[in-house]
């Protein structure tokens, strides 16, 4: 009886899971791009998204400019932050990857607190809406799906495919792949490794800004929610294997669906979903430990 009703609900929750998965994928894409080129997992990715989104809030809500101006401001700030973070990592070239990654933890703390200082802690903030929160269609099982949720998935998939194409087909992409494979050899080939790394951080953090602006209407828009969402982005990236961008989107979808399905069987709380995310990543990692970027990690 229970199973019968659950199977009727499953399609609807699958749609919800895919929608949430697009969210995680969007944050994870920038993470994977940065990781591939620099070997560092940016723990501050969520904080960058949060800080950039607050800049969009400043422009579009507080100053009353159109929402696209806010989005542009957010992307600009995100790219600026990516540039700045990469600058603080430069003196640490050759240091263990772990040390360089802890630098991003420092950025996480600074950005989170700075945003609280500038825009207030714990207070409710009005989100910037790039598209109206209107219902687009009704999924099987009566679940409404909104325009912005579809946009999230479309943007995630488009960014993944677009970026993968850039990496594969342009000379800049070839440079980036060369640096990802072996920075020393890339330098010997005359590639400006610093510039390529810098560019990857700027693009990766710019993507975090896009993710932040698209996601805030569905989140508690404070200094914590997006900052902490980096964990689910990291999980999605790890499930995707930390290498291919399209697989990262798949990783996001898997995580989203895994979190949503239990709801078809019993009403659950959001906390349980986070716990399931943890179980999923532990399970995936024990089945298939990721290839850590070997020589450079040492």
């Amino acid at each position, binding site marked *: 009886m229970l199973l019968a009703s659950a199977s009727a609900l499953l399609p609807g929750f699958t749609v919800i899971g895919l929608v949430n998965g697009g969210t995680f994928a969007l944050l994870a894409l920038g993470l994977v791009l940065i990781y591939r080129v620099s070997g560092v997992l940016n723990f501050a990715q969520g904080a960058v998204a949060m800080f950039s989104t607050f800049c969009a809030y400043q422009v579009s809500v507080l100053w009353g400019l159109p929402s696209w101006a806010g989005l542009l401001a957010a992307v600009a700030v995100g790219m600026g932050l990516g540039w700045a973070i990469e600058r603080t990592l430069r003196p640490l070239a050759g240091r*263990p990857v772990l040390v360089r990654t802890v630098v991003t933890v420092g950025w996480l703390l600074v950005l989170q607190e700075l945003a609280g200082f500038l825009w207030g802690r714990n207070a409710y903030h009005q989100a910037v809406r790039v598209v109206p929160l209107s219902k687009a269609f009704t999924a099987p099982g009566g679940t409404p799906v909104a325009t912005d949720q579809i946009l999230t998935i479309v943007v995630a998939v488009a960014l993944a495919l677009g970026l993968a194409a850039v990496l594969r087909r342009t000379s800049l992409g070839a440079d980036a792949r060369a640096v990802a494979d072996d920075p020393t050899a890339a330098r010997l080939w005359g590639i400006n490794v610093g510039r390529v790394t810098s560019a990857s951080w700027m693009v990766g953090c710019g993507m975090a800004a896009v993710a932040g602006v698209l996601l805030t209407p569905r989140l508690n828009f404070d200094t914590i929610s997006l900052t902490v969402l980096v964990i689910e982005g990291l999980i999605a990236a790890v499930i995707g294997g930390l290498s291919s961008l399209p697989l990262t989107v798949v990783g996001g979808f898997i995580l989203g669906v895994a979190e949503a399905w239990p709801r078809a069987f019993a009403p659950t709380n959001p906390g349980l979903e986070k716990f399931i995310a943890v179980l999923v990543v532990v399970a995936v990692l024990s089945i298939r430990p990721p290839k850590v970027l070997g020589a450079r990690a040492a």
Partner: protein
Amino acid sequence: MNTILLLRTRLLRLSAIAAGVVLATLAVNGFGANDRRLATLAAAYGLLVLSLVVLTGFAGQVSFVQAQLAGVGALVTGWLVANMGWSFWAAAPVAVAASVIVGVVVGLPALRLQGLILGVVTLALALGFDAYLFTLGPFGKGFTLARPALPGLNLADDRITFAVCLAVLLLAALAVANLRRSGTGRLFAAVRDSEVAARTAGVDVTRLKLTAFAVSAGLAGLAGVLLALTVGSVEKQSFGLLFSVNVTAVATLMGTGMVGSAVAGGLFLAFGGQVLNLAGLDPQYFNIVLGAGLIAQLIAAPEGLLPKLGRLGSAIAAKRAPSPVIDTNPATVTP
């Protein structure tokens, strides 16, 4: 002869700890109530940092879940005392044991993972505790517990509580320092420096990693028990995700390689806000200072502040009294 020497060093160390506790308590005697409370918190936080000295500094494992392990200790203590009617002194060892068990389970993924990925998994585990496990059943509401009675000591007195917490911290620090010099400690170092080499040399890496997680979780659990003792109420909010990130950041900032980081880190975590306040800044901006400090420290002194200060100190001392011994280390020869 050796035994006598050993006994003498032990006696000396223990009396040094006793003297330290007495002196610190005398100092705290002059503090206001709030500063006394912070000093006691500093001792408990010090244990939390110490747990990372063992795990990261000695065994080379990454963890962002230490505050949650302390939360297990505190919440189990609270539950046993407030809901089950146990005596605090019976509950404390059970709570520490619970932390150790959880710590070993948390350490299981570490058997196959290293570095960054282990960092991601422990961070995810911290989220799992924060968002779900700590909300289950009675844990979600938290507990209040009265100061327990200890024959001969009046724990209701802030100064006595502080002295007890500091003594626990210093004894634990002494034990950890001994652990580093022990056979297990050297095996930890072997695993930290190269897992492959250690395995090749016949070291049981699995057992050692789990031992490191168990010891570390025990220390974190003890920190939780002390927090339950001093604060008098246990709430899951005190053991949140961002606090865990803070603890790891502070331990890294001070340097996980040194036992002394526990004292420095505990003081920094407890009094950091207060110091900002004295400087005319809002203590809420502690994290900005911590984060910026962390970035600067990693660039300037990746091994941590304390080892850097120690080196600076010995460099100054060496300048003042040039030693007749010829320095053969090319790194220290000035052109």
